């Protein structure tokens, strides 16, 4: 197992390098420069030249790339051109924390509630409980999360005053955005667990467990759950990555200084170094999450361990 993880970590480094390279050239092939060209056109040709030179943009792309890589290995991700002068690592760190907090809480709420709902729905298949879960689940995926966020803000925040309407000043500010984001997670988890569990509940080993005289609760938790959780773990990977890296709409509704808008703003503003820094961070995070999920697979289903050990 340790060797396997080590091997994956080497892969990870290579993957990151490829991603960085591709992103670098893709970013530079986006139209435009990081500057307000309209304003720059007011400057003399010599002045314009100076500006490009001061960012190193006058050099051929491959030289820029190698310079970026060398700096990156030294731990220097450059400075932003949108947030002028701000080191990229500082921007990313500042902005990732709020997103990570609300994302983590949303996943936590979502997984716990989703699991409970999904299990109950499967166990009470075709009862009102089941239908209710399915309704929640369908609404959860079909109502855009910004509408949920706006409704929660209006009713729980503004009308009832239970939670702050917006801003990012204390822990209480993180609850509504987390709730808004967890809605979709609940929906997805509940559905996947329900479906998978319905088929697991038909397996002989469930009958076997019943014939052992085990209580329904024990059968559900010890026998059915672990066998139904695999697709959930798979889907959880992308849920975690998406949520921890921010949701533009929900963050802007609650004025959370998160990473959601940073992605969009910096891409649209051709802020090369910030995008690259974000991408490196994001993909490292993603690859690590995938690695954790693959390890979880093995932990959850012993049959998979063999398959991956053979690799």
């Amino acid at each position, binding site marked *: 197992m340790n060797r396997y993880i080590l091997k994956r970590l080497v892969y990870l480094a290579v993957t990151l390098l490829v991603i960085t390279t591709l992103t670098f050239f893709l970013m530079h092939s986006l139209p435009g420069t990081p500057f307000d060209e309209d304003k720059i056109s007011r400057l003399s040709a010599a002045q314009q030249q100076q500006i490009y030179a001061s960012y190193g943009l006058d050099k051929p792309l491959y030289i820029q790339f190698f310079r970026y890589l060398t700096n990156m290995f030294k731990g220097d991700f450059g400075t932003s051109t949108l947030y002028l002068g701000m080191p990229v690592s500082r921007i990313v760190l500042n902005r990732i924390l709020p997103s990570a907090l609300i994302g983590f809480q949303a996943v936590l709420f979502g997984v716990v509630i989703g699991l409970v709902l999904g299990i109950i729905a499967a166990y009470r*298949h075709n009862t009102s409980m089941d239908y209710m879960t399915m309704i929640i689940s369908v609404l959860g995926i079909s109502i855009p999360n910004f509408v949920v966020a706006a409704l929660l803000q209006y009713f729980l925040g503004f009308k009832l005053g239970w939670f702050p309407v917006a801003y990012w000043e204390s822990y209480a500010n993180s609850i509504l955005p987390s709730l808004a984001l967890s809605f979709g997670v609940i929906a997805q988890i509940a559905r996947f667990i329900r479906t998978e569990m319905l088929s697991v509940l038909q*397996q*002989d*080993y469930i*009958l*076997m*467990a*019943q*014939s*052992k*005289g*085990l*209580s*329904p609760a024990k059968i559900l938790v*010890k*026998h059915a759950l*672990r*066998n139904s959780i695999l697709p959930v773990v798979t889907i959880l990977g992308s849920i975690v990555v998406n949520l921890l890296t921010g949701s533009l709409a929900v963050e802007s509704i609650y004025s959370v200084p998160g990473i959601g808008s940073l992605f969009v703003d910096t891409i649209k503003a051709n802020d090369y170094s910030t995008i690259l820094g974000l991408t490196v961070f994001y993909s490292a995070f993603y690859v690590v999450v995938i690695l954790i999920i693959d390890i979880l697979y093995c932990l*959850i*289903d*012993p*049959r998979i361990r*063999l398959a991956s050990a053979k690799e």
Partner: protein
Amino acid sequence: MNQLLEVDNLKINLETQSGTVQAVRGVSLKLAPKQILAVVGESGSGKSMTVKGILKLLPKTGGIVGGKILFEGKDITDYSVKQMRSINGSEMSMIFQDPMTSLNPTMTIGKQISEVLREHTKMNAKQRRARAVELLNLVGISYPEKRYSQYPHQLSGGMRQRVVIAIALACNPKVLIADEPTTALDVTIQAQILDLMRSLQEKFGTAIILITHNLGVVANIAQNVSVMYGGMIVESGTVEEIFYDAKHPYTLGLLASIPNVDEKDKELNIIPGTPPDLIDPPKGCPFSSRCPRAMEVCHQYAPEKTMVSGTHWLSCWLMDPRADKQHGGDRA
């Protein structure tokens, strides 16, 4: 004889999308302590449903609609699933057909054994482990200590069935129900498993209901045999009575279809046709449509139980004196 388990006129219905299936239509069984009873029939005859009905393991869509089940004299017919939990696994336990699917793939062998001990005994973790290893040893698994912490997929089919047997025997049950325990296994393994079951039965005196579609495996192991067809028992008796004095055409057909090693060239005997549709069961004898000696009456009226001896009975119109007139005793 004081009966350990008595099933009287049990009826079980299953709700499906196509309609209500009358899976079990009045089955009666008697099991004495230390006895091995074989229930024989082809798939769909309702034999699995009968035993699942006894243990209350029916699917949610199924239910007992009539009859009685007595266990050690107690009426357990209307026991809830919750009430049955104290009996299942400790007093009565079950072995399933396919060892490949009846073990939880994500739980170690040891855990699956000690789980049942934990449920029904007061043993502590250490004792449970010791008992589990002992059981593995008992069912003939080598390196039981090592196997204890392995997962089902690391074991062969035969070994898994031994594990299932170990689980079933963990609490020294009085009744062991084995639902086609050898069907999914290789022929050589089949014999080993049957041997194991017999030796364990001799050792512990557990009464066994052995469900099988293969009359061949019955001869060496069972004392009594009930033959099921179309949700009913059509003939019942001791092994000798069934093998040497079977009277029901279906039983005879089953006997004829046992491959005989001596007659290599002979074509394998089969019973033509398919079992009846139990959503709309035939009015008369369920076997009438396939019976080589069917009469008009068989299609319209259900035959009554005829006692041949104290232990041997069958339901067939051929036993009616009027039938003899027609056929003129042409039986060999």
